[in-house]
């Protein structure tokens, strides 16, 4: 009984396979005109002037916005602090690819052509682009994790323990700039009707877009409506309300026409953040018995110029708690450069930081001649020593054992280069995954109609993660009806407020609110039934009545909801519930876990590295839908494979300009790179993390993938590669 956990087909699947799912740029708005961004070709300096005559004279051009004529925006309350610029409010240039003008024309072709003819004159200053040369000028983040905790932490005496230990490691790992590259480019349609603004925009957070736009244009949030029923992938780059959204609204206001502004793929590399380059220094030590003695993890993260905002890739947070280790110290520092503002990218901090930590663990295991899985089990943490709390739940040991079993890990040859077939070096590697369980306040409205159908509404988002589907399931099960009787609406700021879809928090935040609102609406039906004199249930306790199958069911009989409502002259009952975190965070350490097992095949002569086989086992708490969950898991692993072997944004050192701002040369995995992937979801029914015991699964599966692959490459070749991506040239010496 019930749909929770079952492999239900996606409720929006039909729309997506027929091309009828409508993404931001695809809404039909009459009188629409097209805006195209113009971006700087220098990284530091100042605009000294524009030559606009040619562009203005081109066919169809309606308006060119520059800092000279741009509307002045306010930075009122509600504007996301992370993203303040560039909004054409001044002539300063802080990075290459910064917006300097917006061209509006009657057709897209014409807007694009004219944008290419906007001439900008600059006074060029020297740009800072080489982060690695600036580590001695690194600084402490002003607002690490939005001020929720300090950037550094320490317990025990890592230095003394390191000095005394048998096996030691003191190395540096590097991860490159990576770009999210969702398949849907960022897109906005903005329309003003009087002082009311409607935007259709591709966003992970409609409520943040609403308050940011209201703040910029001096409006009350109620005057701004943000609509986004489908997001063509986000991965973090659509979490903030980046300047193009505001610039589209500005262009619409200035032209008096609805404006569509879609970023080109090249502009996606400088307009909505990226995962910053990190330099991570790891000092770790272990005793002869494999017991970890110390961990020191110092992370440096590339930043933009500080006045653009702040983002720090929190690389060392997992290091604090993942293993039983008495002496741990971590730090986070930023290095300012003339690059755009970085941002969250799928598992920010964990994905990059666990590459370093889980590689280091592998290195230590090799030093003490232990199997890497056995080494991890030897140092298994039963409690979170950093927070000094028990885990709400932790089925990591099951992930280890079930993953290893499915993979056949015990057949692994201990020595590197011990598994070879002809020219092909075979390597097996593994790593741990972990990601925090986050939850925020969310509000849901439920309406049960006389025909028994249920409408559930919340201003949340579906990034392809399955929000439409799993929320429909939660509602259906709570009300004891088939999923087909539920309609879930999201993606509209006119709906009850829900948080940004980030940090894998949508399910843990919204699902409990769906359940609560359904319970509340069902409670109203029970109350109606108890107060209905014909039913004779007046003396019953509410718990004696069940709402399911479109009826209220008592000990002796049932009454259809339609009949019940008809007798009271009502066509529906509704209820709105807000649900948010309780004290679980005070009592418990909240995390999801997993394990990765991978086989790589390396051509001993040519250095080509291919992933041949993959098993991932995960503790995500209570799974809501086996089908959409598996898609999240294989998707995260695929993203991790890209991180491990392919993805890197190349920045020209002289100009700070990105050289591969396209997806032919910013190489992401294609079909041929991805083998069959086996996913295991370990059983873990609990309700301590949140009422439904759901931990979120969007980011967890990518954490540790890069380390598992790096460890497998080491096992295949004997070469330890401490930077990403791992490339042909890194293993050519292994022939």
């Amino acid at each position, binding site marked *: 009984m019930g749909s929770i956990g079952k492999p239900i*087909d996606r409720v*929006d*699947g*039909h*729309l*997506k*396979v*027929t*091309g*009828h799912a409508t*993404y931001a*740029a*695809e809404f*039909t708005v009459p009188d629409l005109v097209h805006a195209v961004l113009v971006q700087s070709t220098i990284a530091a300096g100042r605009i000294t002037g524009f030559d606009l005559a040619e562009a*203005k004279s*081109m*066919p*169809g*051009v*309606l*308006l060119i*916005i520059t800092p000279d*004529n741009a509307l002045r925006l306010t930075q009122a309350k509600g504007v996301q602090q992370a993203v303040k610029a560039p909004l054409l409010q001044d002539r300063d240039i802080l990075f290459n690819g910064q917006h300097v003008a917006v061209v*509006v024309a*009657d*057709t*897209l*072709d014409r807007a694009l052509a004219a944008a290419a*003819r906007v001439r900008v004159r600059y006074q060029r200053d020297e740009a800072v682009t080489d982060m690695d040369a600036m580590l001695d000028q690194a600084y402490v983040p002003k607002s690490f994790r939005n001020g929720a905790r300090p950037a550094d932490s320490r317990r025990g005496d890592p230095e003394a323990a390191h000095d005394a230990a048998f096996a030691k490691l003191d190395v540096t790992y590097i991860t490159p700039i990576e770009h999210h590259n969702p*398949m849907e*480019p960022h897109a906005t349609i903005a329309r003003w009707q009087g002082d009311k603004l409607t935007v259709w925009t591709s966003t992970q957070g409609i409520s943040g877009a609403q308050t940011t736009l209201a703040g910029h244009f001096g409006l009350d949030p109620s005057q701004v409506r943000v609509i986004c029923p*489908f*997001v*063509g*992938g986000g991965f973090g780059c659509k979490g903030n309300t980046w300047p193009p959204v505001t610039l589209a609204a500005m262009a619409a206001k*200035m*032209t*008096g*026409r609805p404006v569509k502004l879609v970023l080109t*793929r090249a502009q996606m590399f400088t307009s909505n953040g990226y995962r910053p380059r990190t330099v991570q220094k790891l000092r770790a030590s272990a005793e002869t018995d494999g017991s970890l003695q110390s961990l020191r993890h110092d992370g440096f993260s590339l930043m933009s110029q500080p006045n653009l905002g702040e983002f720090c890739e929190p690389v060392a947070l997992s290091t604090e708690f993942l293993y039983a280790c008495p002496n741990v110290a971590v730090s986070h520092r930023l290095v300012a450069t003339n690059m755009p503002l970085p941002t969250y990218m799928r598992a920010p901090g964990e994905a990059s930081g666990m590459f370093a930590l889980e590689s280091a663990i592998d290195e230590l295991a090799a030093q003490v001649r232990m199997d890497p899985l056995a080494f991890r089990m030897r140092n298994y943490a039963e409690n979170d020593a950093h927070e000094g709390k028990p885990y709400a739940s932790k089925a990591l040991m099951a992930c280890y054992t079930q993953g290893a079993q499915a993979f056949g890990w015990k057949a692994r040859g201990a020595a590197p280069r011990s598994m070879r077939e002809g020219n092909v070096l075979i390597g097996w590697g593994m790593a741990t995954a972990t990601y925090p369980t986050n939850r925020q306040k969310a509000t849901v409205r439920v309406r049960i109609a006389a025909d028994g159908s249920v409408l559930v509404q919340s201003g949340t988002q579906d*990034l*392809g993660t399955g929000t439409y589907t799993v929320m429909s399931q939660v509602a259906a099960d709570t009300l004891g009806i088939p999923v087909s009787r539920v309609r879930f609406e999201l993606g509209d700021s006119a709906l009850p407020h829900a948080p940004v879809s980030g940090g894998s928090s949508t399910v843990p935040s919204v699902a409990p609110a769906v359940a609560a609102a359904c319970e509340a609406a069902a409670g109203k039906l029970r109350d109606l039934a108890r107060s209905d004199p014909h039913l004779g249930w007046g003396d019953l306790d509410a718990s004696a009545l069940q709402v399911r199958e479109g009826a209220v069911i008592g000990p002796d009989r049932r009454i259809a909801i339609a009949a019940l409502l008809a007798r009271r002259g009502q066509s529906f009952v509704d209820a709105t519930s807000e649900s948010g975190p309780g004290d679980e965070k005070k009592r418990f350490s909240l995390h999801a876990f997993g394990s990765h097992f991978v086989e790589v095949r390396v051509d001993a002569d040519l250095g080509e590295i291919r992933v041949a086989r993959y098993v991932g086992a995960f503790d995500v708490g209570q799974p809501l839908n086996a*089908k*959409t969950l*598996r*898609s999240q898991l*294989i*998707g995260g692993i695929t*993203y991790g494979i890209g991180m491990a072997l392919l993805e890197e944004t190349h920045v020209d050192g002289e100009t700070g300009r990105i050289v591969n701002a*396209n*997806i*032919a040369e910013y190489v*992401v*995995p*294609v*079909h*041929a790179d*991805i*083998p*069959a992937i086996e996913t295991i979801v370990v059983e873990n029914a609990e309700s301590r993390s949140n009422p439904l015991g759901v931990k979120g699964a969007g980011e967890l599966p990518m954490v540790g993938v890069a380390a598992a692959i790096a460890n497998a490459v080491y096992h295949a070749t004997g070469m330890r590669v401490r930077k990403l991506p791992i490339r042909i040239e890194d293993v050519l010496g292994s022939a």
Partner: protein
Amino acid sequence: MSTVSRRGVLGATLTGLALAPQRGQADETTPASPSGTQAPSSPARSAEALDIVLQVNGSAVPLTVEPRTTLLDALREQAQLTGTKKGCDHGSCGACTVHLDGRRVVSCLTLAVRAQGKAITTIEGLAVNGTLHPVQAAFAEQDGFQCGYCTPGQIMSAVALIDEGHTGSDAEIREWMSGNICRCGAYPNIVAAIRGSVQEG
């Protein structure tokens, strides 16, 4: 990748910013003003404008385009057929895949005017009378997507791939689907959907 044959010596004509001819300016250009507001006007006809008729999903679709207008932009911005997606606009992602006379192509690198006289099939033309094409149904059942943005291109490519006969093994399917990037990473499910629709068909 391929390009055009080009007049030989790639001299000065390629190097500077050779300006496009500005035809028919008088009746169409509205100078921008600092205050910004312009009288609303519909896209003005210019000397470059061409009236064409495309055969899309069995229907004649009249459009006004310029020679430079891509088939992708003509479908999305004019014909309101937004099922065909723009991912990179450079032929590198496959989201815009459509069939021209039964062959899969990227519509972002196809000029609309050159598609005249050809049978164009888009994702909107696959289902017949509301019944999903078997490949569409298989994608839905196997969850061959997450965000859904690359999905129309994946499906158009998959339908063509099956016609081409490149379904001998999973490895063959993967190689011949590699022109369609799925950033959500649904690849194993897409392969399963294709394999499944071949077995059932």
